[in-house]
C-alpha cells in the first residue's frame, strides 16, 4: 500500500476516534461548564454504558441490529438515571464544592468499576455490530460500521447543539452556567438543571460507548483511556467551551489516528499529554476558553 492510501486509512481511523472522543468529551465539558465541577466518574459512566449495551444486546432476539438499537436507547437512559441519582444524593449534599466533588466522583468511579468486575467478570466481551457492510476502496477495504459511527456521532453532536441553542432546557442550562444565584432569582430550579445536566453528560458518554463496543469490546476497565483523553480534550479546548471541545477532539482524534498508524499509539498519547502541558503553560484558559 502506497503512502497516500496509508494516510487515507490513518485519517479515517482518526476520524472514528475523533467522533467517539467528541461525544465523550462534550459530556464532560457540559458538566464542567454548567456546574463548575469535574466529574472523574465520567469514564465509569462510559464503561457502564458499554456494559448495559452488552447486556441488552444479549437479551434481544433476532438480528444484531435490534439488540444494538435497543442498547442505543436503554444504555443512555439507565446511565443518565444513575447519574441523576449520584447528583441528587452525593453532589448536591456536597454543595458542589469543586474539591469535594472530585474526591466523591473518584469514589463513584471505584464503586462502579468494582460493581462491574463483580457482576460482569474480568473478561472482555464482544458486542455484535448492527451491520457488517464492508466498503471496498481501490487500495483497502474499510468497515462500513466505523464510517457509520462518524456519521452517528455528528448527528448526536448536532442534537446537543440544537438542545443548547434552541430549547427551553438549553436556555436554562446556559443561564445557570452564567450565574446560578441570579438564575434562582428568576425562578430557575437550579437543582433540577444540575441533575439534568449531569444526567445528560453521562448519557452522552453512554451513547459514545454504545457506538464503540462493536469495534472495541466491553471490559470493566475500559473507561480509563476515554476519561484521560476526554480530560485532555476539554483542557485543550478550553474548560466549558463546547466549540473548543469539538475542535480539540477533531485535532486529537486525527493526530491520534495518524501517529498511531505511522509510529505508535504510545507516542500519540505522549504527544497529547505534552500538548496539554504546553497549553496549560502558555494558554491556561485553553484554545477557545475565555480568560478567567
Amino acid at each position, binding site marked *: 500500500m502506497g503512502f497516500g492510501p496509508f494516510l487515507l486509512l490513518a485519517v479515517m481511523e482518526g476520524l472514528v476516534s475523533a467522533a467517539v472522543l467528541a461525544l465523550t468529551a462534550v459530556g464532560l465539558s457540559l458538566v464542567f461548564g454548567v456546574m463548575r465541577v469535574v466529574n472523574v466518574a465520567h469514564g465509569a459512566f462510559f464503561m457502564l454504558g458499554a456494559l448495559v449495551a452488552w447486556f441488552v444486546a444479549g437479551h434481544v432476539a433476532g438480528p444484531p441490529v435490534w439488540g444494538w438499537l435497543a442498547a442505543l436507547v436503554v444504555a443512555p437512559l439507565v446511565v443518565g438515571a444513575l447519574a441523576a441519582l449520584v447528583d441528587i444524593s452525593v453532589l448536591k449534599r456536597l454543595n458542589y464544592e469543586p474539591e469535594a466533588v472530585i474526591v466523591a466522583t473518584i469514589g463513584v468511579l471505584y464503586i462502579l468499576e468494582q460493581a462491574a468486575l463483580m457482576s460482569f467478570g474480568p473478561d472482555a466481551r464482544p458486542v455484535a455490530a448492527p451491520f457488517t457492510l464492508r466498503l471496498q476502496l481501490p487500495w483497502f477495504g474499510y468497515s462500513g460500521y466505523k464510517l457509520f459511527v462518524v456519521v452517528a456521532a455528528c448527528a448526536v453532536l448536532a442534537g446537543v447543539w440544537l438542545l443548547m441553542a434552541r430549547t427551553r432546557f438549553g436556555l436554562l442550562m446556559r*443561564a445557570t452556567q452564567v450565574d446560578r444565584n441570579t438564575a434562582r*432569582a428568576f*425562578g430557575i430550579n437550579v437543582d433540577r438543571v444540575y441533575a439534568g445536566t449531569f444526567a445528560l453528560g453521562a448519557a452522552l458518554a453512554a451513547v459514545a460507548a454504545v457506538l464503540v463496543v462493536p469495534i472495541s469490546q466491553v471490559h470493566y476497565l475500559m473507561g480509563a483511556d476515554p476519561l484521560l483523553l476526554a480530560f485532555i480534550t476539554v483542557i485543550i479546548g478550553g474548560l466549558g467551551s463546547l466549540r473548543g471541545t469539538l475542535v480539540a477532539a477533531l485535532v486529537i482524534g486525527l493526530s491520534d489516528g495518524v501517529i498511531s498508524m505511522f509510529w505508535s499509539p504510545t507516542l500519540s498519547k505522549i504527544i497529547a499529554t505534552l500538548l496539554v502541558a504546553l497549553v496549560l503553560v502558555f494558554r491556561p484558559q485553553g484554545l477557545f476558553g475565555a480568560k478567567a
Partner: protein
Amino acid sequence: MLRLEGVSAGYGAVTVLRGLSFAAEAGEVTCIMGRNGVGKTTLMRAIMGQIAVSGSVRLGGEELAGLPAHEVPRRGIALVPQGRRLFGPLTVAENLEIGLMTRGKGAVTRDRVLDLFPRLRERLTQVSSTLSGGEQQMLAIARALCLEPKVLLLDEPTEGLQPSMIAAIRQVVLGLKTTGVAVVLVEQRVSAVLDMADRVAFMDHGTVAETVARADLAPGAAQFATWVGV
C-alpha cells in the same frame, strides 16, 4: 403587600440584618437609604430567599421565609440586582425569555415590557453584554418586569448612569406605581428619593432605624444627615 418582621440574616458567622422589620405597600414607592455596607443588598437577598433568614417574610398572607430561592420569584417578587447581573452571553430576547418562563403572560407581557423600552426591541438578537451600560440597566428592569411582579425590588438601579437613562428609569418606576406594583427602591441620591418616594426607610446597624412618609421629609431633613451622612 410585603411585610418583614424580626428578620435576621447574614453570611456564615457574620450577621448583617438584626431583627429588621419593613413593609412595602401596593401602588407605593418605598425607598431604602443607608450608608454603604449597612446591609441594603443583603436585605434584597434575604427577601429573595438567597440567604438563610430567621424571622418572617410575608407576601400578602403567605410566609416566604424558608422557601427555596427559585420559589420566591414564582410568588411574584422580582429583583433588579445591584450591578445588573444580566445573563451576559445570552441575547436580549433570551434574557427576557428567562423571566417569561417563570411567570407572566407570554407574548402579552413581553410586548407590554418592550413598549416601555423601545430601544431593547431594536436589539433583541444582540448579546446582552455588548449593550451600553444604560441599555443593560433597562434590560435588567425589563427582565424583572417579565415576571409580572407584585413587588419589584430595585437595588441602586441608577448607579453610574447618565441623566437621560435615569430619567427613563424614573418614568418606568412611576408608571409601575400607578399599576399597583409595590416598588422597593434602594437609592442613594436624596433628590431622586424626594422625587419618587412615598415612604423612606432608613437603615442602620442591620435594622430599619426610622421610616418616614415623604410628606414629612424636606430636602434638608435631619434624617438624611443622621442615617446617610449627606
